[in-house]
C-alpha cells in the first residue's frame, strides 16, 4: 500500500514536471505563430491569439516586389545543396584513399585532419573577411560554399574513414583479381556499400549552411545575396520590431519544413553525431 502511494506521488510529480517543460517548449512556438497572424506590423497592444487573425504577412513575404524573402530562401537552398554535393563527393574520395591505400604522407595527412577538426572555421573570421575583400570574393555565394565545404571536410572525413574500414578488404582484392581498375572498384564495389554514412554526411552538409549565421553575415553584403539567417536578422535588427509580425511569418515558414525534415531523419543524425563524438 505504502509502495503504491509512493509510486502514485512519483508519477504525478513526473507528469507535472513534464507538463511544465512541455509548456516552456511550446509557448515560444505558439507565441510566434500567434504573432505571425496579427494584423498589425508591430506587436504593441496585440494579443497572443488575435481575434482578427490574418495571413497577410505570409502573402507579403511571397510577394517578390515587397520582400526579398523568396530570394533568401532560394539562396539558402542553393548554397546548402551545392555544399552538400561538393562535400559528399570530396569526402567519398578522401575517405576511400585513407582507408584503402598506404601511401607516403598518409599519416601526416590524417594528423592534419585531426588538428584542423579541432579549430572551428570561424576562428579565422578576420582572415576570411580580409581575404574575401582582397580577392574580390566578398558578397559571393561561391566563397561561402567553399568555406562551408572546407569546414566540413576534416571531421566528416574521419567519420567516413571509420565506416569505410568496416567494409572487408577482401571485396576489393577479389575485384582486383578480376581485373577491375582503381576507380572501378571504388565506384561499383565500395560506393554502394557506404551509402548510409554518406547519407548522414549529406544531411550534416545540408543543415550546417542552413543554420550558420556568422560566416554568411561576414561574407554577404547585399540584400539580394542574403541567406535566410542573415535576412531574418536584418528584418528584426533594422526596424526595432516595427516589422516583427512579418519576421514572425518568415520564422514560421522556416521552422516548419526544417523541423519536419529533422524529426523524420533524426535517427540518422543522432547516429552520426554519436559516432563522431565517441570515435573521433
Amino acid at each position, binding site marked *: 500500500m505504502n509502495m503504491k502511494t509512493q509510486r502514485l506521488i512519483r508519477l504525478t510529480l513526473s507528469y507535472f514536471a513534464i507538463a511544465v517543460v512541455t509548456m516552456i517548449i511550446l509557448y515560444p512556438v505558439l507565441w510566434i505563430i500567434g504573432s505571425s497572424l496579427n494584423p498589425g506590423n508591430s506587436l504593441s497592444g496585440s494579443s497572443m491569439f488575435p481575434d482578427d487573425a490574418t495571413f497577410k504577412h505570409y502573402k507579403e513575404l511571397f510577394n517578390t516586389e515587397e520582400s526579398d524573402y523568396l530570394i533568401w530562401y532560394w539562396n539558402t537552398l542553393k548554397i546548402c545543396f551545392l555544399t552538400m554535393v561538393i562535400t559528399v563527393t570530396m569526402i567519398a574520395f578522401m575517405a576511400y584513399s585513407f582507408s584503402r591505400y598506404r601511401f607516403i604522407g598518409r599519416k601526416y595527412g590524417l594528423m592534419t585532419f585531426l588538428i584542423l577538426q*579541432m579549430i572551428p572555421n570561424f*576562428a579565422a573570421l*578576420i582572415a576570411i573577411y580580409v581575404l574575401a575583400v*582582397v580577392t574580390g570574393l566578398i558578397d559571393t555565394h561561391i566563397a561561402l560554399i567553399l568555406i562551408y565545404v572546407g569546414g566540413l571536410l576534416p571531421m566528416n572525413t574521419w567519420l567516413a574513414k571509420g565506416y569505410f574500414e568496416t567494409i572487408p578488404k577482401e571485396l576489393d582484392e577479389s575485384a582486383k583479381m578480376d581485373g577491375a581498375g582503381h576507380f572501378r572498384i571504388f565506384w561499383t564495389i565500395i560506393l554502394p556499400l557506404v551509402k548510409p554514412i554518406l547519407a548522414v554526411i549529406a544531411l550534416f552538409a545540408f543543415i550546417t549552411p542552413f543554420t550558420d*549565421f556568422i560566416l554568411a553575415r*561576414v561574407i554577404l553584403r547585399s540584400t539580394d545575396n542574403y541567406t535566410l539567417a542573415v535576412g531574418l536578422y536584418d528584418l*528584426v535588427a533594422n526596424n526595432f520590431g516595427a516589422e516583427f509580425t512579418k519576421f514572425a511569418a518568415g520564422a514560421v515558414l522556416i521552422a516548419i519544413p526544417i523541423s519536419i525534415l529533422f524529426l523524420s531523419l533524426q535517427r540518422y543524425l543522432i547516429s552520426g553525431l554519436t559516432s563522431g563524438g565517441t570515435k*573521433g
Partner: protein
Amino acid sequence: MDITEAKTNHKKIATYLSIFPGAGQFYNRQFIKGSVFLFLTIIFMSAFWDIIDIGLWGIVTLGEIPMEDHSIFLLVQGIIALLVIAIGITIYVINLVDAYRNGKRRDLGFEKNSIRQQYQNLIDTGFPYLMLSPGFFLLIFVVIFPILFVILLSFTNYSISNSPPAKLVDWVGFDNYIDIFKMDTWRHTFFNVFKWTIIWTFAATTLQIAVGIFLAVLVNQKELKFKKMIRTIFILPWAVPAFVSILVFAGMFNNTFGTINNDILAFLGIGPISWMTDPFWTKFALIMIQSWLGFPFIFVMVTGVLQSIPNELYEAAQVDGASMWQKFKNITFPIVMYATAPIMITQYTFNFNNFNVIFLFNGGDPAVVGQNGAGATDILISWIYKLTLEVGQYGKAAAITMMLSLVVITVAIWQFRRTKSFQEEDMM
C-alpha cells in the same frame, strides 16, 4: 650476382645524384619517373620563381612605398610563396627518398621493373594522391591559408586607420599581445569579456546538461505513458534552426512588446524587467535560452545510454534496498557520464564559441562605457567579430583569436588523447 650484391652502393650514389631532381631515377634506370621529377622541377622553377621572389620580399618588408605597395596583398603573396616552397620541398624530399629506395632495391639485387611495370606502379601509387588532391587543395586555401594569415596578422599593426593602399602596415612583433595585457582599456575589456565567457560557458553548459539528464531519467521511468510523444516534443527545440528560435526569444524578451513582460510576468503579478538593458537580466535570459536550445541534444544522448543499461543492475540494487537517489548516484550517473563524457566536453567548447545566441539575442549589448568595442554580454568570439567588422582593429582581433584558439585547441587535444581513434594503431 651474389658477389656484386655486397659491393654495389647504388642507394648512396642514387641519393646523391638526386640532389639534382630526377638524376637518381635516371641512374636507377627509371626513365619515366626521372622525367616526371625533372619536368616537375623545371615547371616549378620557371612558374613559381617570380611568386617566390616577390612573396618573400613582400612578407619581410610588407611594402616600402605607400599607394604603390599594398601591404595586405604582399602578405597574401608571401603566404602563397611559403606554401609553394613547402610543396616544393615535399616533392624534393619524395624525390630523394625514392632514389634511395630504388637504389637499395638494386643493391639487394632485385630486377628493375620493366617500363610497363613502372607505368603501372606510377598509376598505383598516384591514385590515392589523385583522389585526395581536390580536397587537399581546398583545405589549403580555405582553412590552412586563413589560419596562417591570422597568425601573421596578429604580429602586425593592421587596423582601419592604417589600411592600405593609402598607408603601409608594419610588423610589430608581440606588441598586440603586450598591449592587450598592458594598456588599461584593452586589459580591462579583455578580462571582463574573458570572465563572462568563462562564466557563460560553465553556467549555460552545465545547466543544459543537468536539465537534459534530469528529463531523460524522468521520461525513462518504466510506468510512464506516452513516452514517444513526450520525446518528440522534447526534441522540438533542437529541430527548429537555432537562429530562428534565438530571434523569436529576442522578441519575447523585448522590454516593450515582449510577451515575457507583458503576459507572463504580468500574470504572475511581477513588474516588468528590463531584459535587454540590464546586464544582469540579459545574462540571466541568455543562460535560460541556451538551456532551452541545448538540452534536447543531451536528452537524446542520455536516453540512448539509459536504454542500454541492463535492468538487472537496478533489480540487484532494489534487493539491497537502495533508494531512488542511491540508484541514480551509483548506477545511472556514472554509466551515463562514462558513455557521454567526450560529447559533454564538446558542448563546453561549443558554448565557449557560441556566437549565434549572444549576437542574435542582443548583439552583445547592453553597451558598457569604457570597454573597447565590447558590450556587457559579449564573449570572446563576438568581441572578435565586432573588432573586425565594426571597429576595424584587425591586428588586435587576430591576437585575441590566437589566444582563444589556444584555449580551444588545448581542450580538444586533451579530449582527443582520451578517445579511441587516437590510440588506434591503424591510424598511425
